[in-house]
């Protein structure tokens, strides 16, 4: 069934669970480094390995981040709350229980407002709670890397004990056909917010921001919620939108044919479809109970207020402000946001570049390179400060655009700051008028007919001479200056 047909008969209801990995220096309950990509099982200790006798100690910085996230989501902060044990057996859980929160989350009752195509949606936040991540299973020896055809599995406990905040929405109704777009906008909003708070790397591709997308359909006009599915493995904003789009169509087709939706988890495949995972019809019993190894968390109202004072500007508000300050059209600004370049441009402007110059570099030359390398803009090995320095060299006449692109090559190749690349590669524009004048003279001599035209007043012909000079100077000349010299000689 196509999406429009589905929307003609059904109203989707969303429920989004987002896990945010905090970027604290150490893990949630021990002193091990909280770091992605290290040698497997190198960041482990008796505590995060769950060795007999070991005990957890809460990471104060993680509590602080949890409170700041809660406040930024408009939540109430619990004056007193506890951790709870979520009991289940799985090889990636070293204790065979996850230390989480159950009925006493640190933050609850929040709300965020999103704008999607000019329409405002209020998303109610049920709770944001603290928990620890599990280790990572690597299913080896098979073709797909999935457990089904693996010969054996390895476990990396580096991730075990990473601090997580799980943010859960209340059911989101009334989005209609915009449901996938609203979900995408919501996760994008959270990503921007977490980044602005500085609490997480929010790299969806690395799993530091993960979304489980619940969706159910109600026949139009009804109010009773349908059975939902929970789609996992949606590792990018685009996947969220696509997965929900697919899942809505799949459910609608099932229901329209008189079938039933099975309450289950679904696994999203980037090829564009979901497959059934664990059935949720028999609810698992996690036997939650308050974690007896930890004392309650009781943040004082004074501390909470101190943390409230550290909250950054809400990203949506900030965007409005920056757009006005930078004087970009809606389209220009949307391009920046869509390219994930807002913070980069902001930092580049802060480092001294004009907004228009900063935008130009990030959205053209650098965007092209990121695209070619399959990286996000922010992952390019060039900093906003370096981009501003590059523009400064251009403004000073040291570089022209062509040379500037070579300097970017150098910076990306790790040759240092723009000034260092210019020096190292000998790329500076030749500003020595003596050398330029000699080259101009040679060009005039070599092209007497062109020179004659210019003398007759056909200034446009100067281009050919400029080209010749630039060629001789291997591009390292300021074309405007060359033009001036030619016109001075001939006019």
């Amino acid at each position, binding site marked *: 069934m196509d999406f429009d047909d589905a929307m003609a008969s059904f109203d989707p209801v969303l429920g989004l669970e987002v896990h945010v990995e905090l970027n604290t220096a150490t893990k949630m309950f021990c002193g091990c480094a909280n770091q992605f990509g290290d040698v497997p099982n190198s960041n482990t200790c*008796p505590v995060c390995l*769950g*060795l*007999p*006798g*070991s005990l957890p100690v*809460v990471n104060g910085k993680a509590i602080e981040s949890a409170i700041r996230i809660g406040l930024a989501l408009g939540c109430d902060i619990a004056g007193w709350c506890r951790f709870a044990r979520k009991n289940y057996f799985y*090889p990636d859980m070293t204790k*065979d229980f996850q230390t989480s929160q159950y009925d006493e989350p640190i933050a609850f009752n929040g709300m965020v407002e999103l704008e999607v195509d000019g329409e405002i949606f209020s998303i109610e936040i049920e709770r944001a709670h603290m928990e620890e991540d599990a280790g990572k299973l690597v299913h080896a020896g098979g073709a797909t890397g999935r457990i089904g055809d693996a010969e054996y599995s390895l476990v990396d406990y580096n991730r075990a004990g990473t601090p997580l905040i799980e943010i859960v929405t209340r059911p989101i109704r009334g989005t209609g056909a915009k449901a996938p777009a609203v979900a995408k906008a919501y996760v994008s909003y959270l990503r921007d917010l977490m980044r602005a708070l500085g609490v997480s790397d929010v790299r969806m591709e690395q799993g530091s921001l993960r979304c489980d997308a619940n969706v159910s359909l109600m026949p139009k006009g009804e109010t009773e919620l349908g059975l939902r599915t929970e789609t996992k493995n949606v590792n990018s904003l685009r996947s969220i939108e696509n997965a929900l789009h697919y899942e809505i169509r799949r459910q609608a087709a099932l229901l329209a044919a008189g079938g039933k939706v099975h309450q289950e988890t679904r696994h999203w495949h980037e090829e564009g479809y979901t497959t059934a995972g664990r059935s949720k019809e028999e609810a698992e019993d996690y*036997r939650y109970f308050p974690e007896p190894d930890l004392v309650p968390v009781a943040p004082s109202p004074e501390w909470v207020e101190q943390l409230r004072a550290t909250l950054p500007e809400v990203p949506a508000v900030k965007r409005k402000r920056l757009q006005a300050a930078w004087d970009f059209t809606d389209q220009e600004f949307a391009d920046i946001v869509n390219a994930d370049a807002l913070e980069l441009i902001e930092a580049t402007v802060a480092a001294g570049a004009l907004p228009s110059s900063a935008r130009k570099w990030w959205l053209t030359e650098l965007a092209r390179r990121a695209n070619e390398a399959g990286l996000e803009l922010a992952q390019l090995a060039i900093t906003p400060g370096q981009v501003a320095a590059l523009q400064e060299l251009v403004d000073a006449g040291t570089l022209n655009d062509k040379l500037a692109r070579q300097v970017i090559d150098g910076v990306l190749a790790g040759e240092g700051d723009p000034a260092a690349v210019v020096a190292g590669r000998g790329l500076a524009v030749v500003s020595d008028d003596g050398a330029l004048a000699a080259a101009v003279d040679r060009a005039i001599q070599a092209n007497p007919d062109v020179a004659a035209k210019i003398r007759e007043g056909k200034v446009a012909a100067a281009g050919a001479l400029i080209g010749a000079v630039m060629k001789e100077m291997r591009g390292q000349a300021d074309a405007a200056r060359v033009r001036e010299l030619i016109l001075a000689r001939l006019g």
Partner: protein
Amino acid sequence: MSDLLHTDAAELSGLLADKQLSARELTQASLEQIERVDSEVKAFLHVDADRALASAEAIDARRMAGEELGPLAGIPLAMKDIFTMTGAPTTCGSRILEGWVPPYNSTITDKVLAAGIVVLGKTNMDEFAMGSSTENSGYFTTHNPWDLDRIPGGSGGGSAAALAAFEAPLALGTDTGGSIRQPAAVTATVGVKPTYGATSRYGVVAMASSLDTPGPCARTVLDAALLHQVIAGWDPRDSTSINAAVPDVVAAAKHAEVKGLKIAVVRELGGDGYAPGVLQRFNEALAVLAELGAEITEVSCPNFDYALSAYYLIMPSEVSSNLARFDAMRYGLRVGDDGVNSVEDVMNLTRGAGFGAEVKRRIIIGTYALSSGYYDAYYGSAQKVRTLITQDFDAAFASADVLVSPTTPTTAFKIGERVDDPLAMYKADLCTIPSNLAGNCAISVPVGLSPDDGLPVGFQIMAPAMADDRLYRVGAALEQALTDRWGGPLLNQLVASPAGAYLSGGAR
């Protein structure tokens, strides 16, 4: 048997400090006694003679070099096999941990080693500290030195038996429902459950986190105090540990004085179901305290009647979660890993083979009690009872400095007598459990042999949280008065009797 073995740690400390005795000689004497009697008593799961002698020699060398050492430096100790210590197996009396050598020390192990105490080895216990007799050990049953056909108490029966058999002057235990005090009572030794949070649980393999309390075991109250002073104190690695000064328990044990002290007998901990001989010795001890000038009263703690029931919901609930990690994935036993069985199969097979019946029973009870739909009725209600018991204590301590009761309703029972009757076994902890639920401190001191069967009777003193010094003050006063009366420590009567001849190398 060498007189050294009879000598208490406080006196040995003086001999060592005066260089009249070396730690090596003392350790050698303990090791020889272990050699002599442990095939009968079976207190130890693991003895590392070489390591013990090496650390004793290191202490001697430091002393010879003029280093100022703590009072227990060079004194041997028997460690319950639930404290992690690098280089030695920690099994918790369970087959599922057979051969596991922990890569880290418990905080208390660190403190003990830093104090220069010589660790002789690891003592037997009921599996994961679940039991009152050591019959639930996955390895063997420890025998009561007073009567080798009887249980030494549990779960810390190994530590208590090691003391009573003069294999070590000091021992460590953990007390979740009475596992230090009940073995002390049935072996005529001294056992202390400190205030919950006063001693670190870091590196002590958890049975029930909200109840587990490591504590000292010794043959005298002062020795227990000396060890208490070493092991107590705030530990940043244990979130439930108390960040406050440790009361001066050694001073309290040395200045035993009960004149004017208000001592209240808990009405609910006595009467029906208590052996007459136990009650007789208990009452005689009360009379001694009264003679010493204490004011004896009676209090009622009505909710104590529900303590055992609440305990047998809270404890197994925590057990069911704490013991989940023994899943064959990372350490310990692994059964059925044949390349065909699934991960879940291997977990099931390993847990089936590695855990004993009592552990399984408690895991099942706890899993049930925490289940959705039953949580409020079981775990939730039990926690409410726990609060009521704490309130009973608070009310009682408002009018009394300490509370007293028999430590256990009976003397040591016969090995095998209660193995098929878990409820009878559980009742051994009837008097000790309330203090675990409330988190206050308590001690058991020997008050004589029951006229019924000639076996030791323990007297329990309970004090408010962080008033551990009161235990030592009252315990030492009672001990002093009674040993004067007996003409020496109660354990001397065992040594002098035919039943104790084996302790000195004689025939059993």
